[in-house]
């Protein structure tokens, strides 16, 4: 077990394509760091550089205080769980798990002890003699986990391990991975594009975009204070509403670009006349009783009933131009119909302001 430290890590392909443009992350011993971002953001490349499957163009990766840049995957003593599990199809479950230990020349009875222990932990004891193709997706996933566990490596690396599973199994395995990682206390790096996995698994969450880490913090800190419009849009579902606005009303309110005005409470506004982006999460909008207490009015154009929640899609009622769709998440059972005009309040302090030019948080 060890901490994992990335210092200004860069990856350049073919001299010109920058996949990772300088990322620094510090993962304390025993913690789980999740790299999340859209496809092509460099998260997998970063993980593969930690694993030693890709060379590091610039910067350093250290595991347990040792710089591992020039080491092969073997010497780094890490274990990796792949998206497609990468189980050896011609070996039994037992041999799949034992393979790494045999390669390290471990004694036979010690291998046997470790494999059986891991199989017990993962509920695979009855499947040890089976071939991977005779297992279900969830079981294969467990074997891939088992192969990582038996090694007791310095760090676990997960490359989208749950994306080949169906929704129900994914939820189940997510919880299992989390509790297993806690129990074993192994430093982990987990790559995903699924924000639910990102939020639930991470001790430290890294939101990546275009080869850069947009924000590194705890999941809740990122949810509460997204550093940019990208992070705001990526974390949270449905995505945060973003409206172009200008500071007006003598610095007391915002006039929306599409028409209408908003006065967010408990929010410090910047200087008058500045163009900004106003961000409000769908769950931070409430229907108020009267128009006088409303920050804006929502003209409903579509309704999605999810059971626990109702999603009201619409536009500001006083909008003079089309576009700028908003989504409000209302409590389940709220009666809303298409065409309704709802007076909405933004919960106090829940308005996010971003610079219109850079997209950075103000």
């Amino acid at each position: 077990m060890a901490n994992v430290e990335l210092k200004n890590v860069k990856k350049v392909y073919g001299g010109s394509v920058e996949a990772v443009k300088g990322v620094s992350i510090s993962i304390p011993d025993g913690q789980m760091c999740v790299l999340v971002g859209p496809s092509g953001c460099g998260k997998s490349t970063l993980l593969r550089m930690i694993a030693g499957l890709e060379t590091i163009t610039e910067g350093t990766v250290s595991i347990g205080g040792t710089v591992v840049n020039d080491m092969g995957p073997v010497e780094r003593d890490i274990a990796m769980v792949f998206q497609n599990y990468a189980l050896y199809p011609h070996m039994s479950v037992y041999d799949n798990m034992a393979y790494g230990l045999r390669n390290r020349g471990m004694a036979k009875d010690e291998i046997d002890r470790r494999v059986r222990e891991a199989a017990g932990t993962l509920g695979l004891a009855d499947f040890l003699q089976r071939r991977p193709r005779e297992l279900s997706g969830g079981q294969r996933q467990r074997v891939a986990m088992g192969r990582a566990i038996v090694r007791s490596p310095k760090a676990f690396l997960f490359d989208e391990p749950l994306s080949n599973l169906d929704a129900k199994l994914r939820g189940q395995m997510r919880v299992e991975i989390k509790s297993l990682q806690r129990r074993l206390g192994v430093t982990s790096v987990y790559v995903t594009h699924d924000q639910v996995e990102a939020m639930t698994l991470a001790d430290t969450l890294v939101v990546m975009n275009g080869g850069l880490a947009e924000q590194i913090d705890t999941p809740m800190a990122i949810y509460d204070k997204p550093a940019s419009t990208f992070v705001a849009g990526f974390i949270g579902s449905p995505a945060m509403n973003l409206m172009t606005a200008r500071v007006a009303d003598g610095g007391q309110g915002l006039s929306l670009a599409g028409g209408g005005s908003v006065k967010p409470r408990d929010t410090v506004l910047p200087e008058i006349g500045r163009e900004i982006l106003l961000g409000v999460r769908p769950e931070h909008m409430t229907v108020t009783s009267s128009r006088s207490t409303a920050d804006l009015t929502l003209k409903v154009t579509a309704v999605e009933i999810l059971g626990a929640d109702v999603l009201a899609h619409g536009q500001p009622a006083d909008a003079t131009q089309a576009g700028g769709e908003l989504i409000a998440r209302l409590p389940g059972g709220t009666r809303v119909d298409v065409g309704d005009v709802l007076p909405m309040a933004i919960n106090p302090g829940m308005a996010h302001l971003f610079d219109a030019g850079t997209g950075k948080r103000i």
Partner: protein
Amino acid sequence: MSPRVVFPNKILPYALLLPQLVIVGIFFYWPASQALYQSVLREDPFGLRTTFVGMRNFQRVLADPNYLNAVENTAIFSIAVAFFAMSIALLLAVMADKIIKGKGIYRTMLIWPYAIAPAIAGMVWLFMFNPAMGTFAFMLRSAGYAWDPLLKGDQAMILVIAAAAWKQISYNFLFFVAGLQAIPKTLIEAAAIDGAGETKRFWTIIFPLLAPTTFFLLVINTTYAFFDTFGIIHAVTGGGPGKSTETLVYKVYHDGFVNLILGDSAAQSVILMVIVIVLTAIQFRYVEKKVHYG
């Protein structure tokens, strides 16, 4: 099990099978039945008189030391051709798989020899190693090696094996490259993380996963060495010197079409057919059991 496709038309499936059946019928079943028929007859060289002799052709052939010599030659020749053609092709395929730049060019160049007709390939090797004028023969002699495949049987055997294997390498290479590409890269990466070095990865992961390809090529190469190398042997040594490179298929030709002993030749081709059927059956029954199909 997926449900079987049922043709609504009763005749169409047979009509679709017909061209293939006609080809197999004309070029395999008919000549094969002719061989079976001929093998129990004795015919004079001019085809004027034919006598039924039962199994006596077989008895004579199997008691003939020249025939046993051909069996031995064929065994040595086939094993060597299959082994070298496959192992060299595998080595080349593994190497070609690692190339990043100019992959296509390498592959195309390595596949070309397959387009050369066996007799031409044989001639090329013959000229290169001809003791009187061959470049390589000259080099071998300059190096102090007494190279003369026209007089020395074992050297002649080496030459035909080399020519026959060389020609088949391209074909095997193509299949091995395809087989290697079908192995997921993540498996290799997983093995690397699991602490297996390159050699170990090859023997514990890549080679076992290539088994279906290897098995297929084993069957194909055996058949190739038995039958399709006739042209090469004919061009390079003509079965000589003496009878040191005469294989079974070459002896069938020689006894039948040169010496005009049709009965013996037919009996030999029947035996040859049986040998290949048995070999293929053994390969499927015993070797295939160890093959892991994905």
